[in-house]
């Protein structure tokens, strides 16, 4: 590059108009290799993957029970049919996971993301 061996004057015209090629050691690859980024990605996945598996299984359970155990679901517990309680349970779990994710993201993800971002944007602390 111009700063290295050659005279650091102006770019030759052909290189100015040439499409930008990505150098092999670009900023994104460097950032992706930092321990903070690796930890950030791992922390995100460590929350969302189990949470997704959990809620999908729980939803499939709701579907399955609806399909095959209609008798059980017809029982009324405290005046409400079990099928409606299950549906409300889906709502409750969704609200709970939303709150949990927000809490987790604010505490565990945002600070780490800020480190990675600030370093890339090179902002003075």
């Amino acid at each position, binding site marked *: 590059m111009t700063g290295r061996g050659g005279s650091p004057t102006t770019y030759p015209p052909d290189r100015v108009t040439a499409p930008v090629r990505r150098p092999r050691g670009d900023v994104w690859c460097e950032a992706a290799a930092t321990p903070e980024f690796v930890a950030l990605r791992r922390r995100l996945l460590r929350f969302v993957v189990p949470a997704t598996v959990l809620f999908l299984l729980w939803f499939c359970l709701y579907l399955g029970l609806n399909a095959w155990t209609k008798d059980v679901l017809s029982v009324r517990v405290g005046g409400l049919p079990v099928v409606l309680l299950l549906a409300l349970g889906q709502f409750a779990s969704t609200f709970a996971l939303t709150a949990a994710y*927000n809490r987790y993201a604010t505490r565990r993800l945002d600070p780490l993301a800020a480190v990675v971002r600030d370093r890339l944007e090179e902002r003075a602390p």
Partner: protein
Amino acid sequence: MTPVLPPAVGDPVLNVAVFAVFLLVVLVVVLRVSRSGATRSSYYAGGHGFTGPENGLALSGDFLSAATFLGIVGAVAVSGPDGFGYAVAAFVAWLLALFFVAELIRNTGRYTLADVLTVRLRERPVRAAAATSTVVISIMYLLAQLAGAGGLVALLLDVTDPAGQAVVIACVGGLMIVYVLIGGMTGTTWLQIAKATLLLATGAVMTAYVLGTHGLSLTRLLDAAAARHPAGDAVLRPGLLYGGGLLAQADLLSLAIGGVLGVAGLPHILMRFYTVPTARQARSSVTWAIWLIGGFFLLTLVLGYGAAALVGPERILAAPGGVNSAAPLLALEIGGEVGLALVSAIAFATILAVVAGLTITAAAAFAHDVYANLIRRGRATAAEEIRVARRATLVIGVLGTAGGVLANGQNIAFLVSLTFTAAASANLPTLLYSLFWRGFTSTGALWSMYGGLAVTVGLITVSPAVSGTPESMLPGIDIAVFPLTNPGLVSVPAGFLLGWLGSKLGGERPDAAAFARISVRAFSGAGVARPVPGDPSLPPPEGRHRRTPWRPARDRRDVGSPADDTDTGRISDGPIGLDDDRPAPSRPSAYPAPGPAGGTLPRRVPGAATGASGTGAFFRPATPVGAAVRDEPRERPAYGPRDARPHPGPGRR
């Protein structure tokens, strides 16, 4: 049962009057916000200037279509818990949007789905595929929404002849085009916010009334509904809608898969995440949307049983519009003609808001992806692109309205669930693979998007939804080979499988650097608000735009979008907002030159390198060229309290 009740319910003039008031209020807001003049960022993304709560309201306004609002209330009234199952699926689905989509999309994209994908995948083919899927899915949904308006018109305005209904549908379509053309995404957003507020407030009041008349006891309400329902207690048990054998269960599963996985891939929902400035605001918008939509679905459960108890399923089914008339009839029962007029206005506002969101999404995909980046190869100016976007809005709006008029009366209700399934089969796999799978390639994206779309549309064509049964769209012919009315059970796995196969068999090597780029951008949000030095991309040009309806809200809405007018509009072309304290940089005369192949120089600082830091330098020369910048960041404490402070993004200063 007595002969069919007179369909004329309420006072059509009053219904129209309430709707007109709503239109007027929204129009005033839209006119105020559109005064700043349209740029790409304001036309496509509302200037990235909305807050999380506002966007959450708009998301729920965009999501709660007539099918979800009127349809679920009616389905619960007529079919009990089975009818509510759709609401459960559509609601749970939002977790996917929260976990995997909202923040990551906001961090990587600018205007369209293709902007996200092309951060790591090949520009032209992938952009074409993403635009195709966006336009196809949006137009399918648009048709379904407008065609469904016919029944509403009959119910609410007492217009029963097809010509009259066509005029009303055309009016709704025309209104939508006017709003979108005047207000762009900003206007659409305010339309959706207004509608969501009205919908939630009315739903809450109606629910309070219904519960109040039953001693605030859900149990008593359920008993009253069962007493009024012809099927008796069956309305409190599963099985009324999906009672049959294995095939019916498979159909239900198919529908549920499409519903759960589709929401996070719907183009008009994805588009909404660009209207906020930061990932935090995107997260906050989905969180708000989840609370609002969840709360509203809980209201629909009460309203559905309330309609069964107070109106009665026979009367609902006999009214024009069928199950969709449950909510309007309940409103008539509760609030008389004024109540009905309010719900009618909401129903039309719902159609208006949803089709506006769909039209602008399709228009953005056409103008930004197809025209500016594929046809003009990124050389179109922002003004040209906006002009094309407006024309595309007009054309798509007119075509959609015409299609809606033609399809009026056809049984195309399956199109709504098909839209979700198509989004789950074509968009979601591509999006998830792009963000999380190292080995994904452009070929995989093409296979998954075109393949997922083709499998979905192909299977629905040979399904009972289109032909073979009396309820089909074309009852006269029978080409139904596929047994299910919804192809999700096959097409969603097919979309994921095709993406994987295409990546493995496509003979293309995954681009590790591109994967690093999209991952770091998506997870950290680097480059969204401020430039990343050394990033080989265009800097943002000068200029900032104001688009606030209420001027005093400076602290949050005065977000400049200097990158509005970059040549291609990709997020990698520069940040979407800049700090006030930093003067807008002048545009450099040239790209930074590429580094030597395989070179180890970590950052290019063109200004310092050329000694011309005053004029051509966009990237501030933070480090002397040749210094070991690579090790510099390690000197900072990684987890210090200073880093834990909230990121002062452009939306929060």
